[in-house]
């Protein structure tokens, strides 16, 4: 972890106003903000660790637990909502065995909802690892889970 952090810190000067960009890059690297990394950021920027945490928890973009390899975001914008987002979310929760905001124990899936992806014309939408899946359905939800499970299985074999 030390080396990765030093690589990130190398791009900054350690000023307190750099806190948010530093946090973004640390999350970019680890997928989330590990506690030890937050302490290191506090040391580097000379911002108290509690304040680093206060800033990080204020913004929805920062996470404090590892993210799944499949990061699924279900859009709950108005257009997606009226075209069945709640059922999609329900089906994904059922298929994955986790609730919204959770990550599966094997770190394969994270399930989140977002207010709007900005692709209302393609609603209902789901985003998987930054790829928008248009005109999503509960059936596709089941397929998505099976597909990536078999992909993972073939990788390990």
């Amino acid at each position, binding site marked *: 972890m030390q080396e990765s952090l030093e690589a990130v810190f190398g791009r900054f000067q350690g000023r307190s106003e750099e806190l948010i960009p530093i946090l973004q890059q640390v999350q970019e690297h680890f997928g989330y903000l590990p*506690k030890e990394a937050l302490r290191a950021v506090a040391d580097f920027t000379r911002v108290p660790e509690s304040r680093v945490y206060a800033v990080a928890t*204020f913004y929805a973009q920062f996470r404090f637990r590892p993210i799944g390899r499949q990061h699924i975001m279900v859009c709950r914008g108005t257009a997606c909502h009226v075209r069945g987002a709640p059922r999609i979310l329900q089906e994904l929760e059922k298929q994955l065995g986790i609730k919204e905001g959770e990550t599966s124990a094997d770190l394969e899936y994270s399930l989140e909802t977002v207010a709007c992806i900005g692709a209302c014309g393609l609603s209902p939408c789901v985003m998987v690892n930054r790829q928008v899946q248009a005109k999503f359905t509960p059936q596709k939800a089941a397929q998505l889970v099976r597909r990536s499970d078999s992909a993972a299985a073939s990788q390990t074999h």
Partner: protein
Amino acid sequence: MADLRLTIDGRQVVVAQGATILEAALDAGIYIPHLCHHPDLKPVGICRLCMVEVAGRGMTLACLAPAEDGMVVKTESQQIDKVRRVALELLLVNHPGDCLTCAKNNRCQLQRIAAYVGVSPQRFARLRRTEKTLPPDDSNPFFLFDPNQCVLCGICIRTCDEIVGANAIDFAFRGFQTMVSTLSGRWVESSCVSCGECVVRCPVAALVPKRYQQPQHEVQTVCPYCGVGCTIYVGIRGGRIVAVGGDRQSPVNQGRLCVKGRFGHDFVHHPDRLTTPLVRRDGQLVPVAWDEALELVARQFDQYRGDAFAAMSSARCTNEENYLMQKLVRAVLGTNNIDHCARLCHSPSVAGLARTLGSGAMTNTIQDIAQSRCIFAIGTNTTAAHPVLALKVVEAVRRGAKLIVANPKHIDLDRHATLRLQHQPGSDVALLMGMARVIAEERLYDAEFIARRTVDFDAFRASLERFPLEFVEQATGVPRQHIVEAARMFANHKPASILYAMGITQHTHGTDNVLAISNLALLTGNLGIPGGGINPLRGQGNVQGACDMGALPNVLPGYQRVDDPQIRSKFEAVWGCTLPPGPGLALTEMFDAMLRGQIKAVYLMGENPLLSEADAQHAERALRQLDFLVVQDIFLTETARLAHVVLPAASSAEKDGTFTNTERRVQRVRKAVDPPGEAKPDWWIICQIAQRLGASGFSFSHPQEIMSEIASLTPIYGGMAYQRLEPQGLQWPCPSMDHPGTPILHTQRFATPDGKARFVPLDYKPPAELPDDEYPLLLTTDRSLYQYHTGTMTRRVEGLEVLDGQERLCINPHDAAAMQLADGQQVIVRSRRGRVMVRVKVTSSCQPGVVSLTFHFAETPTNVLTHAALDPVAKIPETKVCAVRIEPLDGPPQPGLHQQITDTTSCAGR
């Protein structure tokens, strides 16, 4: 500035400039509901409860609005009531209504406001109450955090930031989820220092002590721990201490306490307390009656009068007790072989500063530190060893002072530092003289002060030639530009204060280190002025007093030399005896004298040399060789286990007397509870022994009478009397009963014969033992915030053991990687003198090549490793530097190992 006159609710109120409307009202006894206001903190106006109406201006927050002359303020109106009620109801919506069973019942600010504003049951029932079920955090052993009780006033957060400087907590998350949180959520895993300052300020039950009982009555006394000497109120109920709080009126601590001072008093009632005298029979210590024990002690002492006798006095005992101890040793037993633990901490300060300034004590006050414009903290881990004094450093920095921290380790104070110098252990003279050289070369010194108040400047200046910056850089490992920067910062910000502690003194060149500090302060004219000074931070609670009382081999009370016949005859006349003329042996010399058979009997009071002495095995061998060893203590310490007679003493909570803190303030210690069993105050025990030895002058019925005798013989204590020490104590020198005491030393003249301070030319001497191929690492020693000295008291406080109950060898990540050591791994640390087993803590707080240990833990007796090489002047051992090597241990710990090292570990961890 003129006072302000304003009208509040038709009453004329007068306040000082700068007060807010709320302060003006509260001062005048007019209650305005408020929740987020605290007199120690800056106002923030977040609770919206203190709304008032100002004529011509309308509604305003009383806590934020400055009072103005002629202002007309109303605290009651329909509109105010409406606003206040909404603010209150929004809080009540989120607050459990379990007042009767709440820990804060009757002491809760929210309860008080609800009672004042008045909430009808109908209205309360109609509130859409939220169900908050956030998990409370009970990770801290001393207090509980329940976010469900929290009203988000932020007082705890601001206390931790503005007063403590630990910044462990802040508002985390947002909106409805907003809560007070540490980085991890668990308080013990954060930078929280468990001082409880937030707990005492919390207006509701969000932060409460885990164990709390309302005391029946309170007694004002002095904290038993470090030399800061915080004034405390001990709350008593049923003959037991149930709560401890700081004295807000105290000039020492203004009510603030550290974790030990607030929560570390359980040892007083610990079942391990000695309750009866013990005498060794057939190898076993068996309980006997006082008479028998005292008779035996007197009979034995009688046989060893003269230089075959030695006493070790105690910095945890009162002035009166230390005075009696040295009187017994000198007047009755006829030897000057008396010393105490100051030998191991600040003997170089006493020797060094007495030489240059004429007086070896802290020159300024604790409060003064906050007025400094530059603080140079060298060889002091202030937040760990003198936590409440460190708050003044934090305060000064918040006021804009520069802070230079020089320490071989990366310490907590670094977070507040303007400039951080991580020098090699033992290179202090080079660093200080290097800074002096820059100041001299750049002519930043105070020429007027040097000419008027000092001598020997030219010789000193010439000696700076021996410290070219290339050399200083190489010796200290500090980059040259940092040395230059530090020198300029120190010289250009006056008043500048120097704080130092064991990092300076515990070296074979400890006295030189102190002299170098003295040179630097003289060079910049930083003596005799508020906010300046040389401030050696004394270690134990009454170590200053024990020195003042002459528990030293070369001086009588008040630093009056034993080798001065005039002084001796003054004491002889009062004591009715003939005093030995030559100085006795220093503590560190006594052990060799025991091994040589020269000292045969030792009287040891409140000391534990088996853990505190450098090269502890050597000390143990010496003590084992004695014909007769008496140990007087509150616990059966590692050393007491070797004794022939053990005498049970009263703790400082169980007797009257005085302590003198690090700023020379003599303060009253008051009896709060009875000693357990047959335990007796040390002064009583000493008097009994003296009387059984046939001595007169020991028939005291109260410590007050002893203080009268001290005052009559000790010029610097001449004006000390118990009634004068109420309520805040007096700072010596205080030569007469009408003298107000002396907060700052050397304001007009120095305490030297000619009134002038001395510069001292210096040379650089490396530490006595440096790493080599065989022992490649440098071991330095430090302290934990949560433990104290050899742990006899703190290790019997359960919560402190939870927070830090185990020794760790701190080692730099690079060294750990090179040796393939993992965090938590067991290793053997070996020096030329001994070895200990310990777990590794990998941390960048140590620089490469340097490892560190504390000496608090009996099961890891660090001082079997340390080097007993002595400073030639002060006779202090070099406990800050020795060479060690690390041998990894595979597999589980070997329990038998410590028995081979020393058999004292049978009582390890109590």
